[in-house]
């Protein structure tokens, strides 16, 4: 049985946040008498993550995904509740814990701007007690996996965003962490660079059995990497489970385009009590609940003269996108 590597119990986090009214009056008031209020951004959440899992945290901007990630890696102290990561209390940031994890943020960088990435890799290697020979071996292996070579010797400031992100990944993985926290790692990358990054993460997970916790607004990242997702809404977990179940939950119907031999059959189908999305001459599109799809199709094929039919799954990206667009979406 695969053990839990992350356990979160009744976790909450409050931040003191000040608000400011617009205009000069608001600015002066904000300067002299700042109104702060305690805001509970994470509310009593519970979940476990098993070793080797790739988990996607989904939610609209400001839902609390990054705060959860930062509490898991020990950057932020929780206000209430407990977190255990690899058996450690993250916020104590013990060396043995830090050697096990890494955090990659798509919008922040740790590489030394004026130097080639290779210099940052060796610096990180020395911080993680990795000798030069071993560091060289790991750099070679990871650069092969990431398909970067010449870029390692070019100053970071002259690299493209995609090349820089690959180098950031290499810098963050040189110590072979067991747990990867990725906060929007594909942010700003072009389609090819995104695909390469996903390919690498899959490979890394397969080769090392590392646990990956990922937040991303690119649905392709989630759909191609994560079997399980945790949906965060207003600081609470609104869904924790398999991605395909979520998709079924969010999209309980399938669209079936039926091409009848005659318009008469199409008209008959129109009046048969099904939910009709559209009808053009002998082509009719029906919306049928997932659980009735097979029985309905059997009846339709036996009762009508059908020339052709197509079952359309709604695009998964679109479905998950609903969670991000509609903040009040009920799961």
């Amino acid at each position: 049985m695969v053990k839990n590597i992350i356990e979160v119990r009744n976790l909450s986090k409050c931040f003191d946040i000040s608000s400011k009214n617009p205009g000069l009056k608001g600015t002066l008031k904000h300067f002299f008498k700042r109104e702060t209020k305690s805001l509970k951004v994470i509310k009593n959440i519970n979940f476990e993550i098993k070793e080797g899992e790739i988990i996607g945290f989904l939610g609209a901007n400001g839902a609390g995904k990054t705060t959860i990630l930062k509490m898991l890696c020990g950057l932020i102290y929780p206000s209430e509740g407990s977190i255990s990561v690899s058996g450690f209390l993250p916020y104590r940031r013990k060396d043995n814990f830090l050697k096990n994890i890494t955090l990659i943020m798509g919008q922040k960088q740790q590489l030394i701007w004026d130097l080639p990435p290779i210099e940052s890799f060796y610096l990180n290697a020395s911080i993680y007690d990795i000798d030069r020979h071993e560091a060289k071996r790991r750099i070679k292996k990871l650069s092969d996996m990431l398909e970067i070579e010449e870029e390692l010797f070019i100053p970071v400031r002259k690299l493209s965003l995609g090349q820089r992100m690959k180098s950031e990944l290499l810098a963050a993985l040189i110590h072979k962490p067991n747990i990867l926290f990725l906060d929007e790692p594909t942010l700003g990358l072009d389609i090819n660079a995104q695909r390469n990054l996903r390919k690498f993460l899959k490979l890394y997970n397969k080769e090392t059995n590392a646990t990956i916790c990922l937040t991303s607004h690119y649905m392709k990242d989630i759909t191609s990497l994560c079997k399980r997702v945790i949906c965060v809404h207003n600081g609470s977990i609104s869904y924790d489970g398999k991605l395909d179940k979520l998709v079924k939950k969010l999209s309980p119907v399938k669209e079936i385009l039926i091409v009848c031999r005659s318009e008469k059959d199409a008209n008959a189908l129109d009046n048969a009590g099904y939910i009709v999305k559209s009808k053009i001459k002998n082509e009719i599109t029906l919306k049928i609940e997932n659980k009735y799809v097979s029985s309905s199709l059997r009846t339709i094929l036996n009762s009508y003269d059908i020339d052709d039919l197509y079952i359309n799954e709604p695009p998964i990206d679109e479905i998950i996108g609903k969670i991000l667009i509609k903040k009040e979406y009920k799961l």
Partner: protein
Amino acid sequence: MIKNKYLVVYRKFLHTSFASELEYKTNIIIDTITSILSLVGSIFLLSIFFQNTGSIGGWKFEQALIIQGIYTILNGITNTWFNPNLREIVTHVREGTLDFVLLKPIDSQFFISLNKINPSGFLEIILGVGLLFYCIKINQINVSLSFFILCLITIFCSICILYSLWFFISSTTIWFVKTWNATEVLRSFLYIGRFPITSFSFSLRIFFSIFIPIAFITTIPSEVFLGLNQLWKIILQIVISCVFLFTSRRFWLFALKFYSSASS
């Protein structure tokens, strides 16, 4: 083992900092010229003060040059280590890159205090040492082993006090986010350290001894140079530097508990 690791990492810091700085040759040349001109200007200013008077606060021009020498060394250390590193704390906090520092298995204070150096500050240190050697000659100071040890101890304590003050102010960034001005004020106060503390009024002397101990930073090492040192002052300076170092360390660890990281 741990000591060895920190030495290895520091060597890497030195290497990467030098390499980064050498990327911009013109900047190094400008910094070098600025250092030389700054020292010449300071000595010129000092000579103007002494033009119409034999001594200020009981210090002759030749003796005041010692303070200038120590100030130049401290300024060099400030420009080499404190300025490039401690100023960065504000940026680290504002932009959230402190996250990367805190998630490394290394002491965060060590990392943010020493990860960069500005090599052009070395020239100031060399110029300061050179000026001190010149002062030894013109003031006919007897050089002995105990003299050297005492000088090194008092200068080291001065560095510790200055570092602690600067680090303490920079740590408040965790709450206030922008504290550049406060560190600039500290630098301005350090300029005062170019003059003997006895040249100020009694109230200012108290202020610069207790609240911002500039007196301990330049005057005590200078008194050691001139053989005017009193043991209790040296012991007091050692105690003060230990208290400052300890307090700034505890304050940093306390501040980190309130670090909320920048939003993504």
